[in-house]
């Protein structure tokens, strides 16, 4: 979309919804996309390879080098146990990527299923099911996701699987709403009527004709959910309700760094948080590549 067309004034009812506009503006420029891709191309392999090449480096404690400031030997400094912050941040990033990807995939799967079921039942004349599912979405959204996530992890006990469960059970509502809305609009198009007239079953129309139309949107939603999931995991780990202690996690690193902050050391808290910010911005920037082209008006 060009600058001119966004500046041209349209009465309120002709503008796209507010939150859509805010979301679509992120990463519009080519430079932003390029920078995001480069950052991910560096961080992803580093996060996977470094802990793999030297599995003990992230946990190697050196009590002679507790809280060393950033230096030539330890580029980002060391934490309270003398562990190298660069290696540890990369290892934590690997955990974050893993949990973020799996949790986003599970949440999107639940969301697409619920959203598709809701939209399909409308066209099958079972609007009550749709109403019920959408009220469920409202109910989940009425509890702040972190609070619900905290309750879920507290009840299931801290482990990788309960963190993923916690994220999936709180984040499926966004793709569910999105898929339902997209499918409702696709169901009104001519080719769907043609398929029905041609004798296709309800199931076939939904699975073969309608659902594939919303796949690209669902994929975009899944990618944009990865930073959310990473954030959620780190917030839970920060509260001590996330990853088991032996797994390096960005949130747990920041929690550990609280002691360092009181002692006046900024670096143990700074780097893991910066990693979260950079990953979040890079993933949302790169997601612009997946965005469907603006339809010509």
């Amino acid at each position: 979309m060009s600058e001119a067309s966004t500046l041209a004034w349209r009465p309120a009812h002709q503008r796209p919804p507010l939150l859509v506009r805010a979301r679509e503006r992120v990463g519009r420029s080519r430079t932003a996309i390029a920078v995001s891709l480069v950052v991910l191309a560096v961080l992803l392999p580093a996060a996977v390879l470094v802990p793999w090449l030297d599995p003990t480096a992230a946990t190697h404690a050196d009590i002679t080098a507790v809280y060393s400031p950033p230096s030539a030997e330890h580029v980002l400094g060391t934490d309270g146990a003398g562990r190298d912050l660069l290696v540890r941040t990369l290892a934590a990033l690997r955990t974050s990527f893993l949990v973020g990807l799996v949790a986003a995939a599970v949440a999107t799967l639940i969301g697409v299923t619920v959203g598709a079921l809701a939209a399909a039942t409308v066209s099958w004349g079972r609007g009550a099911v749709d109403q019920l599912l959408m009220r469920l979405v409202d109910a989940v959204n009425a509890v702040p996701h972190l609070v619900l996530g905290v309750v879920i992890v507290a009840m299931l006990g801290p482990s990788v699987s309960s963190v993923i469960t916690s994220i999936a059970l709180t984040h499926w509502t966004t793709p569910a709403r999105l898929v339902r809305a997209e499918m409702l609009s696709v169901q009104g198009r001519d080719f769907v009527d043609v398929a029905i007239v041609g004798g296709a079953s309800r199931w076939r129309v939904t699975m073969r004709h309608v659902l594939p139309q919303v796949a690209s949107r669902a994929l975009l939603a899944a990618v944009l959910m990865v930073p959310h999931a990473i954030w959620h995991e780190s917030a839970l780990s920060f509260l001590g309700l996330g990853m088991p202690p032996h797994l390096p996690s960005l949130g747990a690193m920041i929690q550990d760094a609280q002691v360092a902050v009181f002692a006046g050391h900024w670096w143990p808290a700074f780097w893991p948080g910066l990693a979260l910010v950079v990953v979040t911005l890079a993933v949302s920037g790169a997601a612009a590549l997946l965005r469907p082209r603006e339809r010509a008006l």
Partner: protein
Amino acid sequence: MRSIPRLVGARLALLLPLLALVTLVVFALAANSPFDPLLARLGSRAFSMSGSELEALRMAQGEPSVLAQWATWWGDALRGDLGVSLSLRQEVTQVIAERLPWTLLLMAVALVLAVGTGLVLGTLAAVRSGGWLDRVVTGTAYVVQASPVFWVALLGMWLFAIVLGWVPAGGLTDPGSDVVTLGALVRHLALPAVVLGLSQAPWFVLVVRDTVREELAAPYVLGAWGRGVSTPRVVVRHALRSGLLPMVTVLGVRVPELVTGAVLVETIFSWPGIASATVTAATSVDFGLLAALTVVTTVVVVLGNLAADVAYRLLDPRVGAAHE
């Protein structure tokens, strides 16, 4: 206008079934929990009991179903009895009564700061659209949007409490004192409220910038300019006024995020609110407190959303009128 009482009535009517559903989910989760509620209730006494004694106690207490536990809890809750918090060793109702006001105060101050920042910076960025001010403001907004609030809180604590020593690092009262004085309150509230407000500000900045920028290109604004109305007056009285409406929508959307932020900020700054109590309840598997606090949080969110919707209808009479 007529639709406002109906809107309030409809939402409040939905609140009770919603709370019933939310608590049912919490109870169902608790039933599948690996933690033994009997051991939690006994605490350290459990160590001095033999396996057969524990079994006998378990038999005597019985193992009611999820639905039965849930019904009993609601029966007591509606009579004003929310049970006892095991971790804080207090009546749950007392915990809420003592802590809820502090959370509401923190959230209210943070919200005022976020909205104020949004209005000022968003308008300035819109007026200077495309200029360096706009770039700095929107760029910063994106970075702050991506920054975890607990990270910002810790860095803020490091700079303002530890290095500069301007404000205390946490708590509500000065060391050695239990009395909350106004001066101490302001000093202790400043950093948590600014951090929480800052974390919510980008959404307001960006939405105000967008709407004001669009309205500045509107025919009626050009008309006002053409009539010789001064620029500040055009911006504030004409463009910003229409920019307020979408901001109210964002206000409603951000309420759950504000509560989420409060959970993290209260924990870091040892702020004695309900959000940090939720974390305490969760880490010590204090089920009674956790269930009650989930209900309180849900009520806060629903009422916050309702307030935003009512404000929207008051500001824009067109909304809702169409459905009459």
